[in-house]
């Protein structure tokens, strides 16, 4: 009996080894472990044996059954792997083919720079205020201490709308300063705002376009002075240009809406046609500013013996050009896809204090 078992084992071993596909292997399984299989047949014989014989043969037959099952399973794994390999060989794709891009557009540098500016001033406690593009003469000029005969009006190259029935004509705001007026007339101090937006002057060359963008800053409370203005501008320019230090040159100047007034130059170098902010031997005029003129406070019904503060105004497009290296302002408004792809920003390039302001 034991001889019979061992010869059966070797026969089955040969049969399993000879099964070249899963169907043949299944046939071997049925012929051995199936109900009428050879191993199952021997197992059935156990019932007719004496208890002693059964004691000897039982473990032997069970061991045989287990060995056969293991043999078949092992062979099955090999055959399956081979079958899978064969299938995979037929499934090859040329993955070097170029795929469709996920759509990726761009954000205009002006939007990006506006976001950067808002982010910096948010850290200094400023809100972002707005006003209309079509302004009254009062908000754009008179309340800012620019009466009709003032020589400063000529410097503004103002666009006018047709006069209305009363003879009043709206202007396309020549600066963002009217937002100062609107803010002071509608809000109690303390005030800290910036006001970015579109502005208009009748001018056109490589650095002037009939529409451009400015950002206005205004701080009104009881004790803000010129030192705070200087500190604020330094903090802003340092953060914006992402440099460790900026050197400012303040020059006395004149704006009807500020007194004292100053123009601010930033130290820079012009090496190889690129502007580098922060050091160098040149100065770049970057913004105008000063302490809000008492007449402007009065025009907004704020008591100039109680309140004071500073204001500044700065060209956003110019800031963008200096930081990101464009040299023709007109291209900003041409919507040329090559330009937008080159100078624009990815949707996810959101400037943050934590992640840095530029890409």
């Amino acid at each position, binding site marked *: 009996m034991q001889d019979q078992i061992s010869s059966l084992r070797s026969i089955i071993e040969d049969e399993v080894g000879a099964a070249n596909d899963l169907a043949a292997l299944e046939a071997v399984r049925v012929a051995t472990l199936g109900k009428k299989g050879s191993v199952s047949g021997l197992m059935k014989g156990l019932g007719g044996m004496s208890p002693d014989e059964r004691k000897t043969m039982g473990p032997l037959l069970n061991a045989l059954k287990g060995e056969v099952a293991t043999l078949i399973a092992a062979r099955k794994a090999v055959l399956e792997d081979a079958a899978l390999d064969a299938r995979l060989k037929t499934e090859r794709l040329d993955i070097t083919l170029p*795929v*469709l891009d996920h*759509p990726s*557009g*761009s*954000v*205009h540098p*002006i*939007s990006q720079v506006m976001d950067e500016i808002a982010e910096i*001033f948010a850290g*200094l*406690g*400023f*809100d*972002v205020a*707005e*006003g209309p*593009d*079509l302004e009254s003469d009062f908000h754009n000029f008179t309340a800012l201490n620019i009466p009709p*005969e003032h*020589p*400063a009006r*000529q410097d503004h190259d103002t*666009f*006018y*709308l*047709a*006069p209305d029935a009363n003879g009043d004509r709206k202007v396309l705001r020549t600066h963002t300063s009217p937002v100062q007026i609107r803010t002071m007339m509608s809000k109690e101090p303390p005030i*800290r705002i910036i006001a970015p937006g*579109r502005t*208009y002057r*009748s001018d056109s060359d490589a650095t002037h376009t*009939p529409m451009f963008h400015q950002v206005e800053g205004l701080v009104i409370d009881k*004790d803000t*002075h*010129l*030192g*705070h*203005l*200087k*500190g604020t501008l330094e*903090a802003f320019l340092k953060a914006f240009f992402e440099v460790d230090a900026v050197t400012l*040159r303040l*020059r*006395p*100047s*004149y704006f009807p809406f500020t007194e*004292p007034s100053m*123009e601010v130059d930033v130290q820079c170098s012009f090496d190889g046609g690129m502007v580098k902010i922060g050091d160098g031997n040149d100065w770049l005029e970057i913004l105008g500013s000063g*302490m809000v003129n*008492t007449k402007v406070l009065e025009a907004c019904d704020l008591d100039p013996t109680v309140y004071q503060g500073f204001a500044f105004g700065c060209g956003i497009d110019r800031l963008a050009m200096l930081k990101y290296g464009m040299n023709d302002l007109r291209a900003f408004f041409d*919507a*040329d*896809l090559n330009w*937008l*792809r080159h100078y*624009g*920003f*990815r949707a*996810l390039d959101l400037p943050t204090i934590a992640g840095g302001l530029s890409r």
Partner: protein
Amino acid sequence: MKFSLNWLKDYLETEASLEEILVKLNAIGLEVDSVTNPADALAPFTVAEVLSAEKHPDADKLKVCRVSDGSEEMQIVCGAPNARAGIKVVLGRPGDYVPGLDVTLKKAKIRGVASNGMMCSAKELELGDDHDGIIELPADAPVGLSYVEYAGADNPVIDIEITPNRQDCLGVYGIARDLAAAGLGTLKALNVPKVDGSFDSDVLVSIDLDDDHASACTQFLGRKVTGVKNGPSPQWLQDRLKEIGQRPISALVDITNYITHDLGRPLHVYDAGKLTGNLLVRMADEGETFTALDDKNYTATGEECVIADDAGIQGFGGVIGGLETACDEATTDVVLEAALFDPVRTAFTGRDHGLITDARYRFERGVDPLFIRDGMEIASQMILDLCGGEASRVFEAGADTVWDRTVPFRSERVMTLGGVDLAASESIAILEKLGFTVEGDDPYTVSVPSWRCDIVGEPDLVEEILRIHGYDNIPSVALPATNHKAGTTLSPRQKRARTTKRRLASVGMHEAVTWSFMKREQALLFGGGGDDLVVSNPISSELDCMRPSILPNLMQAAQRNKDRGANGVALFEVGPVYLDDTEKGQLLVAAGLRAGVSERHWQRPSAAVSVFDAKRDALAALEAAGAPVGNVQVFTESADHYHPGRSGSLRLGPKNILAVFGELHPKTLKAMDVDAPMVGFEVYLDRIPAKRGKSAAKSALFVSKLQSVERDFAFLMDADKPAANLIRAVKGADKDHIVGVNVFDVYAGKGVPEGQTSIAVSVSLEPKGETFSDKDIEAISTRIIAAAEKAVGAVLRA
């Protein structure tokens, strides 16, 4: 304002270098625009002597000269008729740049004879127009000396920008005064002569202005000078005027121009022989005409203050004189005018007639009212000195200005406004150096000098003190922290704009920024072009109207890109449109445009842009802006610039139109001269309702643990009925259990009756309480089919 260094030194005793002067000018608010020094171009040239000049062997008009510069001799071939032995000349050597010829000299052979340099004419050195011969210097000119040194040509010309408040620096004397106050030297006293007239003028003046116009001219001084000779002015005066870019005309005119720039005092001279009767200062009559010195005719509006004689207007006061009474070479008798004109009226007269003159420039900024008599004396003396003649006594009308302006001054304001901790004594010292007088105790009473009419209040004094003390000495101070809440910097509207931009960029569109104005003719196509939005003085006729829509600008931009070879253009802009000229009429809109056909790609066929692209973009923009897109209803009505059958609007309720979208109307495309296909959308960001509630927390999430079920339905319905109605009906058939309706097939054609569409939807059902039984699902299905039939007459497809 231009002046030369030498001119400045007429009034400023200083050891300061040019560089120090420039730095100081900037520091005190007189911004240096440019500095040019004629000496820079003349630097290489030397005084030399012609030792001999022989005729060129091969050319009649050329001479071969031996020239010495003191250290060496050289041979130069020269064509000038005056080249001859013994004269002193200006020599240029090989390597030197000759500015008037724009040539760098080289060793040359001229008709076979070596020539090692050039003897220059005035024109070649840009010293004048003379090019008939070479410059002949006086016989005592030292050979070998640099020409710059010999001619004293090292005289830089400084151009500074004068802000509108600083009329006092529109004369060289005023600039010297400011620099002296800033510690850069000593101001030399102005020498004012006293001219004693020897007779009474036969020409007199009167001022005839009513009370309403009395300020137009408050004082007029005149003086007649007889027997003058009006030729060219002396060389020094011509040189001065040329330095600053003025053209010398004649001695009399040059004198008035000189004093205008020297002392900031505009004057006028009339040819007395051409005057008819007396002078009268009056308002112009409307329609009155005269010919001004610029040879142009002007018609008065009636708002001008004029100087007239019996023949009519002879000048716009403070702006320009008349041609008829202008001085010329034959002039022998003149009337000299020094008057005071109102700044505002002068400005308006100049502006109304487009006249920008040196006189207007100064009067509209306010000249020193107390300098009028000194100005008259200085000019009279200069005429007598340069033109001879005999002066009358001064005749006059009006009165001397009473100048007594004082400003109260608290010395602490230098710190509390200016941020500089400065001792009161230092502040006072600065004010006094500038010509102010300071009296009393803190608060002081500060008297303003008559040349500083811009100083009206305490902040002006603080500026003066800081300006001279140095703005660079203002310390930097950080703003104190506030209780500003994080995330409140931007308004909700600004946040909407920000996220919408980034969302549209993320779906592949490129942000453009285009003009707020456009061509009115085209604005009309987009529902705009109203009279109230027309720009009166546009920069071009293409930009003469505020835009009613962003799309036309994007359409043109897309076409430009297409013309440059781009296909599949996708642009957007978030910016203003204008419904009227009021604040509320300006809306913030996010608009986008897709044009053309997508690029061919092996993964998908190329396709033309379609209205569904625009709808998808609009929904993405709305969703980014925070609109409740789940509640948005789609209407087939849109706007006239869209294709009527391929456009629509997205609304909250029937009235609140959040967005319009669609294929652009073929007529609009044609009128805009752009190519189909183009689709676009306009999202009105202002119309999106504000987010309710302030809590950052979201409502609790409910997820059913029970198995959800999907069931498909294919409906047949009339093709002209909107699918949205079917979807809404299906959704509403069992609100408790239906959580989603997805259209997965739309078909018309073979197998579907004519005029009908097959729409297949998959409905997601979510059980509440317990799992669905077959019966439950059956019941819901029946309700869905009934609702579809009731709403749009749809029937289940067999």
